[in-house]
Every structure is written in C-alpha cells, then in structure tokens.
C-alpha cells in the first residue's frame, strides 16, 4: 500500500469520527498554537526593537563613538559599570583628529544632550525637553527634515548662534495654535530663536521622539549638557556602505587609542556602538525566549502524544476484525504498521495545522490590540507541523505494532 493511500485512509477515519478526532487533536493543537503564538510574539518584539527603537536611535550604516554604550539592554554587570564610570569622557578637541582619518564620503556629527527645561511666553508652564547640541552632518545622517522653517546654517554652527529647531510635541506645548518660526523660546532661561520644526519621529514603548529640540553644539546650552563644556556625548559617524563601515571603525579605533595613549595590551576605553551591538543583548534574550516558546508547548505536545496513543490503542482494539480482514486479504505486517502510524501522524499533523491556524489568529489579534508588530515565523509553522506529525508517529508506533502483530485468525473472529 502506498503512503498516499494510507493518508487518504487516515483522513477518511478522521472525517467519519469527527468528535473523537477533535478531542484527540486538542493536545497537539494547543501545543502548536502556543508555539506559533509565542514565537511570533518574540519575533514581533525583535522587529519592534530593531526597526522602531534601535532603528530610530541609530541610523543605517552608522555607528556612534562614545565613552560607553548608551543602549544597554540590561546585561551589564557591576564590574563593567564600574569600569564604564571611570572612563575618560569624549572631548570636543578629539573630533578633529578622528574626522581627519575618515574615508571620503563619510559623514559625521557631534552630539551632546541633556533634558532641559524650555519655556515660552505663548504656552503653558515649563516643559522638559531633550535638547541636543549638534554639529556637522547630524540632520543628514538621521535623515531628519524640517516641515517648517530651516536647519541651522554653517555660520550658526560655527558661531554657536542661539537658534533652535524644535520637535512637533514642543510646538504643541509651547506654541499652541501659533507658527513658532522666528518666535522666542527659552532654554534653561536663555532666549533662542526658533528657526525650524522637525517632522514627527514617532514613539517607541510610549516614549515620544518628538519632544526634542536641536541647537548648534556651540550655543550657550553647551554648558548644561555635561559637567564640562568641552565634553561631548558622542560622535556619530556614517559610512556610505556597510562594507566601508568596518574599515572606518578600524581607523577610528586606531586614532582613539593613540589619543588616549593606550598600550597594545590595554582594552579600548571607548565604545563604538552599532545597531548590531545595541541589539546584542536582545539577540541573546530572544534565544532564551524562543527556547521558552518551544519548551512550554512541549508539555502540551506530550499530553497530545499520550492522548493520541490512547486513542490509537482504542482504535486498534475496536478495529481488530478490520485488521484481521485486511491481513486475510493480503496486508503484510508492515502494511498494517504503516496504516496505523500514518493514521496517527495524520492526526498529529491535522492537529498541528489547526494549531498553526489558531496561533496565527492569536498573533493577528496581538498585532491588532497591542503595539507589538507580531510576525509569524515561517520556520515555526514548519516546525509546528513537523513536530505535530512527529508526535503522531511516536505515539502511533506502539499501537501500530500491536495491530500488526495480531493473529489474523483470532482477529477475524473478533466482532
């Protein structure tokens, strides 16, 4: 008997015994459903972090030179923190030597920021805003544009003119129903002229990226960003392509080690943070979550396996006469064996497919009602169905071998 025949036979049995099959399939179905759902939720969290969060913080093909990484997803131990704390801060005078070694076509920007209080005579109360002092190609690297007004000019950067580009949230709060361009705003009490409004940058985890203001690095707010005005928080560097970025990072490392007078045996006392390095911890965590996502449904699958085995044993007992007849008509031991194994694995696979369907529905519901962009992983669908069928095979082996060993004479007599 060919396998196709056996599958058809199994589907017939499932069709004719719907209720019994439904109960049989439940364990596998629920197990696979959780597998699909958990994996797609973990996947969704991963995509969210990569695209929405880190993607917004770190531009494409770029890295940030910092004294220590600022995106740490929780995996930094105390000793490392201690070491981070003792590091030399980056200084403005280090920017020029680094910029000198950058390959042609590379963009760079200086960043220093802090949460500062902003007020205006038009809006309500002070507003705490993330104010960033920038210089260089900052707006190009971030691909950030103004919807209104303009960006600072090179002269304004050079002179540290008190001009500011503000985010939409700040406009809403400090300039309700007003065009803010050319109006005055105070940052920590110092008057600035609004020259532009940025496009919206959205939010992540309830944190708005629009409650921001950008001033020339050399503007008066510089004194308020860090303990000393010459300190900067980061130098942002963007290569024209991913391939060139590695080379650029190597050059920057060499310059920085020279500037910091590090001996060859000493470790870097600065960080070059890429999107990948920021996601390192997440990638590790994702592994554990997926493992949990696979381990928990495993219990459901074990239960499913026991149920299928039980049902198959009952089926063998109920169909003793049928087995006897099949043997009398020429079924060999392996024909009977494969009939029942295929039947069990078809049960498992059908259960798994139902589970896949339900898992996908759960993922879609999660997507609709939570901010998580859940994404069903194709491999989890394949794994689910394969595991379902595998559970069927494993739990079908024992009942099938019992069936195949039945003596045709005794089996024929059973009614």
């Amino acid at each position, binding site marked *: *008997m*060919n396998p196709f*025949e056996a599958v058809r036979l199994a589907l*017939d049995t499932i069709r*004719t015994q719907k209720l019994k099959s439904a109960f049989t399939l439940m364990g596998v179905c629920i197990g696979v459903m959780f597998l699909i759902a958990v994996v797609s939720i973990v996947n969704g969290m991963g995509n969210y972090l990569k695209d929405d969060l880190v993607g917004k913080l770190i531009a494409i093909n770029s890295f940030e030179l910092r004294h220590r990484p600022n995106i740490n997803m929780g995996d930094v131990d105390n000793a490392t923190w201690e070491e981070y704390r003792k590091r030399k801060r980056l200084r403005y005078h280090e920017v020029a030597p680094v910029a000198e070694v950058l390959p042609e076509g590379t963009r760079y920007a200086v960043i220093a920021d802090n949460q500062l209080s902003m007020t205006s005579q038009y809006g309500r109360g002070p507003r705490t805003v993330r104010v960033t002092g920038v210089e260089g190609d900052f707006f190009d690297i971030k691909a950030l544009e103004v919807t209104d007004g303009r960006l600072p000019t090179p002269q304004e950067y050079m002179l540290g003119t008190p001009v500011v580009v503000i985010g939409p949230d700040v406009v809403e709060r400090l300039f309700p129903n007003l065009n803010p361009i050319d109006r005055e705003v105070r940052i920590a009490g110092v008057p600035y002229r609004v020259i532009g409004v940025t496009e919206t940058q959205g939010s992540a985890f309830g944190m708005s990226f629009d409650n921001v203001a950008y001033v020339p690095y050399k503007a008066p707010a510089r004194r308020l960003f860090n303990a000393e005005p010459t300190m900067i928080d980061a130098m942002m560097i963007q290569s024209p392509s991913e391939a060139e970025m590695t080379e650029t990072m190597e050059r920057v490392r060499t310059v920085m080690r020279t500037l910091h007078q590090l001996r060859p045996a000493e470790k870097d006392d600065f960080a070059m943070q890429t999107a990948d390095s920021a996601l390192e911890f997440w990638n590790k965590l994702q592994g554990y979550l997926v493992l949990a996502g696979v381990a928990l449904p495993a219990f459901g699958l074990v239960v499913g396996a026991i149920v299928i085995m039980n049902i198959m044993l009952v089926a063998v007992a109920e169909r003793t*006469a*049928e087995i*006897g*007849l*099949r*043997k*009398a*008509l*020429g*079924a*060999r*031991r*392996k*024909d009977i064996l494969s009939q029942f194994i295929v039947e069990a694995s078809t049960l498992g696979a059908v259960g798994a497919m139902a589970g896949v369907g339900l898992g996908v529905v759960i993922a879609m519901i999660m997507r609709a009602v939570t901010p998580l962009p859940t994404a069903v992983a194709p491999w989890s669908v394949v794994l689910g169905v394969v595991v379902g069928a595998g559970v069927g095979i494993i739990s079908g082996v024992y009942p099938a071998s019992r069936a195949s060993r039945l003596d*045709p*004479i005794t089996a*024929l007599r059973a*009614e």
Partner: protein
Amino acid sequence: MSNTIDDIGISTTGERRAVVSVPGTTPDPDWVIVARGLKREYDMGGEIVRALRGVDLAIRKNEYVAIMGPSGSGKSTLMNLIGCLDSPNGGEYWLNGMLVSAMSDDQLARVRNKEIGFVFQTFNLLPRATALQNVELPLVYAGIPADERKRRATEALDSVQLGPRLHHRPNELSGGQRQRVAIARALVNRPSILLADEPTGNLDSTTSQEIMRVFENLSRQGQTVVMVTHEPDIAAHARRVVVLRDGIVESDERRERFVDRVGISHATTKVAHD
C-alpha cells in the same frame, strides 16, 4: 441432473492417492491444493489439542469441494491452513505448486492476496467503505494503480449483478447483496481458489440458494471453489464432499454418493442446477 458438469475437473480417488503419496515432490500444476499428512496442534495452557492429525487432501483445478464435519472435527483449522492464515506443525501443504507450509508471515500474506479469495460467514465488509472500496481492498494490497483498481472492482461487482450498487455502504445492502459484495471482493484478484467459510451461515434459505447459484456459476466458469460448512444440504451443492472427523478425513466422495448416504432430499439440491 447433468452428468457432464460432474465429469469436468473431478479427480478420481486413484489420482488423488497418487499425488499425495510421495512426500517432498512438487505436484503437477494441475493440482491446486495438495496436503500431505497435515498436522496442527495447539497448546491450550499446557494441554495439547490435536486439531488435525494427518490430513491428506488433493484438489484439482476447477473442482468444487465442500469440507464438512461436526464442530471440533478440525474443519476450521483445515480451512485456516488451506487459506494460508495459519501454518501446520507437520506435513506439507502445496498451493498451486508452492510449498506454503515453509513460508514466512509476509510470504503467506502475499499468497493470500494472490491465490486465495475469502468469503466469510459474517461477510466481513468494512462498514464505512462503499461496495466499490471494499472490493478494491485486495487490489490495494496487490499494489494495483487506482484507476485499474476501480475498473476491475466495478467489473467484479457487475459479475455478481451489483453494478447499480457500487457506491452503497454495507448497511444499505441486504444480506445476500453483502455476501455478493464479499464474493466480488474474493474474485477481484483472480485467485486460484475461492475459499468460503460457512458462506450461508448468516442468510435465510432463499438467499442461501441465491448465493449457492453464484457459486455454481463460478464453478461452471472454471473457478476452483472450496467451501467449509456444517450443513449437509449446503455441502450437497458441491460436486465433491470431504467429511472430517476428529482431525482426519473420514470420507471423500462425489456428491451423489454423499447425498445417497446422508439422505438429503433431491429438492434442495435441484435448485443449484437450474
């Protein structure tokens, strides 16, 4: 009473003696069944039950033989051995020139599929399968492709006048129709022997006669038929009757001698020859 039918394919006592007398020799292909000193013992919890104690039996192609005997005579055991459902403890069994008594389980399954067409007392149809699917079953195990299976199964059902009932399930058919489905199933693989175990045991007398007519027609068309029964008037439909008692052959004779000896009314047997 047509003597011509009886003359076709009936072996004589002398011929049978000759073919069973030399152990180990392959019989002439004309002999479908040759059993030499067939023994079967069962161990029933320490007690040895000797169901067959040395049965000699030779059946030639196109014979129509009934095996009779009271319960406990060993006729079911003999049927199981002839049907290759069981293996003997002693003696030899040649089916169609093959030494079946030396075969493995899987080889026996192959032989059952190709050489034996079973008809059971309780029909043994798959309840959820249609008549057509039931008849296709032996072809499935023979590895015949689906479209040819369908064609041959339809043919077989046509030959037992069930052409219009192809897609009926057993519970939609009468007892006689079910047994005819079973006969179609038995014949679909063109077996060497049609082996029937109490084929009329679950049927009323009218339907029994109907089934006996089917057997008679098959025999006329050249099919070798072996039928196990405990009813003398059913056995009397065969052309040769073998009676077992206590695990050995008690008598092996033409129908006429059997009928005369047991005294069955002519009326019962007449029907089969209309």
